[in-house]
């Protein structure tokens, strides 16, 4: 049997030596008890959450099924060989070619390698189409506390405010959320009402309207060092290039304001 390959796939590399030492063929039911004991020892390294210390009293019950699962997993892998495609592992690593992405650069799920813990063929029971689709969906779903790793803190300054703030651009998904957050943050400093009217949805023109209404203009400094008006480019592009934010007020805003007025007029 070609053990090494299978261990890579299953992630049982820790268990491999123990397994070999137990010698008994996984497939024979007479050896179930033997396997249970060795498997107990290796239980943690099988790495399925929910096993481990909490389940030791049930290990005997489950030992045989774990054995089966292992053998099932092995066979599953050989099926992967036969099947040539659509295995879990292949999906996580290569993946989702057919999906055309018009959106910005999307990190494939494949960039997050399958965890070292065991993955069983065909479990959880989810159809391939859904698996493939979700793999491309996920990088977009901005659960605020997802450990996707990077944060993108940028300074936000407001004219006349005694101190600056810092916000993490990664936790917002679009301009609307950013504008709401900024309002909340700087509400103590603004004259007049910057709160949204509860319209059906915020978008860039509304955002600009509000800020214009209170004589604020939201600008950002991009990678080239130029100060740009927030809202012109797609969100993904914006957070890629934004280095810092500035809420401009008062006299400086006037220079930009006429352009805004025109835009608003053409929309309305």
């Amino acid at each position, binding site marked *: *049997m070609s053990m090494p390959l299978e261990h890579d796939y299953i992630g049982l590399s820790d268990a491999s030596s123990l397994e070999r030492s137990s010698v008994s*063929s996984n497939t*024979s*039911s007479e050896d179930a008890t033997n396997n249970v004991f060795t498997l107990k020892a290796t239980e943690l390294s099988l*790495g*399925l*959450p*929910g*096993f481990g210390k909490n389940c030791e*009293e*049930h290990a005997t*019950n489950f030992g*045989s*099924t*774990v054995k*089966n*699962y292992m*053998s*099932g997993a092995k*066979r*599953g892998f*050989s*099926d*992967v*060989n*036969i*099947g040539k495609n*659509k*295995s*879990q592992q292949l999906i996580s690593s290569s993946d989702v070619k*057919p*999906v*055309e992405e*018009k*959106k910005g650069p999307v990190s494939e799920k494949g960039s997050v390698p399958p965890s070292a*813990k065991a993955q069983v*063929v065909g479990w959880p*029971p*989810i*159809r*391939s*189409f*859904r698996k493939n689709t979700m793999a491309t*969906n996920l990088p*977009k*779903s901005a659960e605020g506390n997802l*450990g996707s790793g990077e944060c993108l803190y940028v300074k936000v300054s407001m004219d006349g405010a005694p101190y600056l703030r810092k916000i993490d651009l990664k936790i917002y*998904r*679009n301009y609307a*959320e950013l504008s709401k957050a900024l309002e909340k943050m700087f509400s103590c400093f603004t004259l007049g009402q910057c709160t949204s009217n509860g319209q*059906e*949805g*915020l*978008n860039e*023109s*509304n955002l600009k309207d509000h800020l214009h209404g209170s004589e604020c203009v939201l600008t950002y400094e991009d990678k080239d060092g130029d100060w740009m008006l927030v809202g012109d480019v*797609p*969100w*993904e592009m914006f957070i890629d290039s934004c280095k810092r934010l500035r809420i401009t007020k008062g006299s400086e805003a006037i220079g930009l304001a006429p352009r805004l007025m025109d835009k608003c007029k053409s*929309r309305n």
Partner: protein
Amino acid sequence: MNPHRKRAKTVDRVDSADSALVSSESTQMRPFPSKPLSVDRVKSVESSESGRMRPFKDKILFVDRVDSVESSESSRTSQFSDKISGFDRADSVEARVDSAGSTRMSRFPDEVLERVLALVDSHKDRSAVSLVCKEWYNAERWSRRHVFIGNCYSVSPEIVAARFPRIRSVTLKGKPRFSDFNLVPEDWGADVQPWLSVFSTAYPFLEELRLKRMAVTDESLEFLAKKFHGFKALSLLSCDGFSTDGLKAIATHCKNLTELDIQENGIDDLGGHWLSCFPDSLTSLEILNFASLNSEVSFDALEKLVSRCKSLRVLKVNRNISLDQLQKLLSHCPQLMELGTGTFMQELISGPVTEFKNMFSNCRNLITLSGLWDATPLYLPVIYPACARLTFLNLSYATLRSDELSNLLSHCKSLRRLWLLDTVGDKGLEAVGSCCPLLEELRVFPADPFDQEILLGVTESGFVSVSRGCPKLRYVLYFCRQMTNAAVATIAQNCPDFTHFRLCIMNPGQPDYLTKEPMDEAFGAIVKTCTKLQRLAISGLLTDRTFEYIGKYAKNLETLSVAFAGSSDLGMEYVLQGCQKLRKLEIRDCPFGNAALLSGLTKYESMRSLWMSACNVTMNACRVLAKERPRLNVEVMRDEEGGDDSQANKVYVYRTVAGPRKDAPPFVLTL
């Protein structure tokens, strides 16, 4: 009256003959029941619950799904003469009893009988009808327009064509369900071409073909498109082997196409040109679903198609269709009943969101909404005007958070069916419970099923919240990472009407996370309380006790899916003995062995199929089963790697009248 009493005697005799047959478990077919020929009687045959009638009733039910036709078929072919003579005898008794010789109800002219029976739609009724007597059998077979074949290998196309000469619509299912999860190698079979070849001569006027888990090639699709001139409706779900070229053929040649429904198939997507192949003269389309195809289609062609098909009621586009484009489409077909959107956000804001505000205001018939890819809170409100009428909302591709869902659902009072991603969390499910009191079906899919690190998703408390607010729940599919026995017991109390309960605790063999006990009591509660349960999928750490409960209480159970569960052969034995109505049993990675397999020896013929993989079954046991039950196909799938040749790792057992497969690939052994 005399005649009645005599008739009753005849019936009794037959019934007792039945029971004798049943108890001796011979493989002979039962004689026709000689029942008085009234529709009432037919119904009572069908609805009879008595144990004595049980196996016989299976045979009746059997016929409707042609996977059951077999056993009555085979008996017919071999023992038809007996049957006829038996029947004649009974007939003559009746004739004698009928002193005046006047035409009783049994003497309908055939045409009238056929006309009446043509109105019978339900499979179960039809199968009951066909077993009443020879005349009814014939009338039924001539009047039948639709045949459902649950397992394509249970019967051969020739047999079907011979029995039912006037079929217009066929539903065919092929591979075992676990093939959806990569447990069945490619090239396993279930090729549709042999069926099409027979149908092209037998049913040249075939109008509808619905395939699930079949292998379909482009050549087959072209064959279908060209040979069947009146062909109207094609539905492909979870099939594989074809490409968009096959769709081109369908679009080009099917002049009367009303339905093209392509769902979740393993398809080679070579581009979206197929849509442009619909001729300008095609105006009959009513259902168009290409949501699962990835390539971009020509929007121009799509828009024109939608505009000229005035009867279009179902339109599900793929992700490449933008909001702008969707709005244009909707302006052409406000009569839509079911809509699958494309991507539900815009990156480059061409206009304020208010521009889309009216997109749905003209769609007064819309009851189903799906798609909603990438929907964000900015654009979701666009659908609010349509929400009040929606009965089915599929958000399983929209990564919504709890507050977003809550806002949306507050508009959706009429929802009956809801599909979600677990990104909504337990809080989102609380909103479901409070906003959707009419909810009957809930499916919660995992957004990230393979990442063990993530502790997000839904838990038992979300499920409980839904159950509190939605007492009419009958169908649930729930993926979670933790569950407790107490929660499931509460859920069962709150929703006693469950017919489908599929709980997937995603870590195999995980116990109740609070008490650390097995999840036996959870499923015990379900089967005890939910007496209407037809389908059950279990997960978590489970001992034989779960199966004891199932066997004891789940008397209406028809489908059972088991994975990583059980402690011994007893588990499977409990189920096989106790669940009288069991039709499909699929098991993976359980410690069930030969004794368990063979305990079902007498049962498998009353089931559609059995799947056992990664259990403890040996080849010898399979051979015994195959030998004892010649009307079962016992198939074992071999691994390529060495492995233990005496172990049967993947076993698929199903009843059939067609004999062993002729198209089995080398890795499938029919014993």
